[in-house]
């Protein structure tokens, strides 16, 4: 009987929600009403509905109930979060399980204090459009599978409302005038980023052009991964700015013509965290630039710094920059170490796939290189960055093919296990 009552009440809410959304009222009001209907359907005391900005890669709260005024109104997502959302779809996730998501780790304390219990990604036609956060029920009971079904059904409606709104915004954005303004803003941003990169590289006389090259390598990787134009630009920016924290490290440490001691290295190792502090307050139109700076020295096996994160905890963009950074360190002369031959470097990347680097990213990078070596790609991206002679090292194409095969064997017969070795050293 009780169950029946609950069902009738919840269906009433669902019907009203459907009506609200088709009525095309004011968007903000529709979302606020939606949150009321969802909370009221199940007696949920706290919650929020957020819209996902593909542009800023963040969840922006549209309606918040009972979570207090200091609840974060904008949550930055990493590439990893996005992948997880997409593979999860609309199913509600218990907060305990959501804790592996990088963005959750950033806000864990805040979510915990507010006793959030459920998190629902809103995915419409394979695109993330938003998310719902839900706190405790007034009964104090945990969410049942029946509750979750209702939430999922209502979430679908809310997701569609947001998707519709996005479509409208898209149409508006494409109007000519807006397009022009947008392009201007974007080019100003790029100029600023490049100026910053130049400033960082100035400080380090031995690794001249490092930031710019890391930006370009990151760009190549993102493009090879099949990312869209905006995301590729974002990856480039993340690379340009990854070492921005070095601006606060003493010049003599950066330029030390010898291997630095422990104290100096502790000082240098602060640069990712400092970089994050510098970049976080800036509104970046692309991807997760601040997190790329913060985590570009993390390793898949948890042996990196500053936080010793493991594979899934590391934002995807940081993994890309890490590879680009390491690759540049290996392929340029350092005060205490000459650049290593191309064949060696390819071997190193392969050996450390799964330890330091993401195998998927190494594969993307090497595929890009192979295309150029085989003449399929005539843009000379690698030659421009590494010099012609370097790229014409004997047997390089074969080496790369062999490496790609090791990373992703097509048949078990051709599989050769990667031998263990310590990763490359970068700063």
């Amino acid at each position, binding site marked *: 009987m009780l169950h029946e009552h609950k069902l009738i009440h919840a269906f009433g809410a669902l019907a009203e929600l459907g009506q609200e959304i088709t009525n095309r009222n004011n968007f903000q009001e529709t979302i606020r009403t939606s949150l009321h209907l969802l*909370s009221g359907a199940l007696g949920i005391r706290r919650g929020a509905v957020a819209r996902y900005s593909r542009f800023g890669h963040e969840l922006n709260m549209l309606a918040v109930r009972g979570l207090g005024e200091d609840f974060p109104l904008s949550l930055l997502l990493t590439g990893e979060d996005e992948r997880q959302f997409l593979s999860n779809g609309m199913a509600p996730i218990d907060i305990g399980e959501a804790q592996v998501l990088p963005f959750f780790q950033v806000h864990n304390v805040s979510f915990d204090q507010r006793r959030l219990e459920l998190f629902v990604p809103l995915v419409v036609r394979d695109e993330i459009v938003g998310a719902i956060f839900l706190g405790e029920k007034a009964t104090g009971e945990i969410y049942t599978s029946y509750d979750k079904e209702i939430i999922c059904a209502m979430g679908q409606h809310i997701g569609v409302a947001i998707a519709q709104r996005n479509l409208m915004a898209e149409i508006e954005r494409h109007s000519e005038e807006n397009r022009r303004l947008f392009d201007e803003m974007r080019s100003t941003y790029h100029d600023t980023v490049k100026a910053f990169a130049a400033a960082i590289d100035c400080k380090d006389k031995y690794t001249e052009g490092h930031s710019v090259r890391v930006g370009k390598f990151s760009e190549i990787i993102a493009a090879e991964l099949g990312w869209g134009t905006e995301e590729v630009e974002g990856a480039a920016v993340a690379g340009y700015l990854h070492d921005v924290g070095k601006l606060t490290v003493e010049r003599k440490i950066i330029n030390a013509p010898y291997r630095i001691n422990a104290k100096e290295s502790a000082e240098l190792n602060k640069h990712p965290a400092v970089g994050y502090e510098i970049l976080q307050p800036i509104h970046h139109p692309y991807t997760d630039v601040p997190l790329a700076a913060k985590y570009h020295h993390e390793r898949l096996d948890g042996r990196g710094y500053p936080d010793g994160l493991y594979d899934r905890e590391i934002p995807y963009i940081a993994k890309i920059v890490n590879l680009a950074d390491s690759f540049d360190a290996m392929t340029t002369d350092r005060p205490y170490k000459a650049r290593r031959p191309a064949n060696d470097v390819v071997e190193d990347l392969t050996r450390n796939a799964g330890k330091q680097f993401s195998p998927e990213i190494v594969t993307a990078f090497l595929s890009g290189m192979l295309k150029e070596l085989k003449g399929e790609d005539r843009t000379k991206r690698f030659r421009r960055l590494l010099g012609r002679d370097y790229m014409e090292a004997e047997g390089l194409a074969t080496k790369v093919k062999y490496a790609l095969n090791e990373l992703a064997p097509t048949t078990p017969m051709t599989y050769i296990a990667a031998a263990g070795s310590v990763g490359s050293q970068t700063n």
Partner: protein
Amino acid sequence: MITDTATAVSAQLSTETSVIYAGDYLNKLTGEQIEYECRRRIDAGCTDLIVNFSKTELVNSIGISILLGVIDIAEKNGAKVAFSDVNETTVELFDMLGLTKHVNIV
């Protein structure tokens, strides 16, 4: 307009006790005015809020959400909330959704 209604249908018993009439606008987005009104009363020193349902026939999901908001505001500010003149169907609904765990029905 709703602000006016909310003010008009509410009565002040003493500084500490306030009665707010839920009416039927509780069931629409405009019902958020009830939350504002409660907040205003509490800020003015009210410690006992009474939400009166004599003019409310039924409460829908939006209404429930608004009432949960009222409960939240009161709890955060150390005030008490009671619901009065609630019909039987609505009491059952409040029971089912856990509202009665947080308020007295008088």
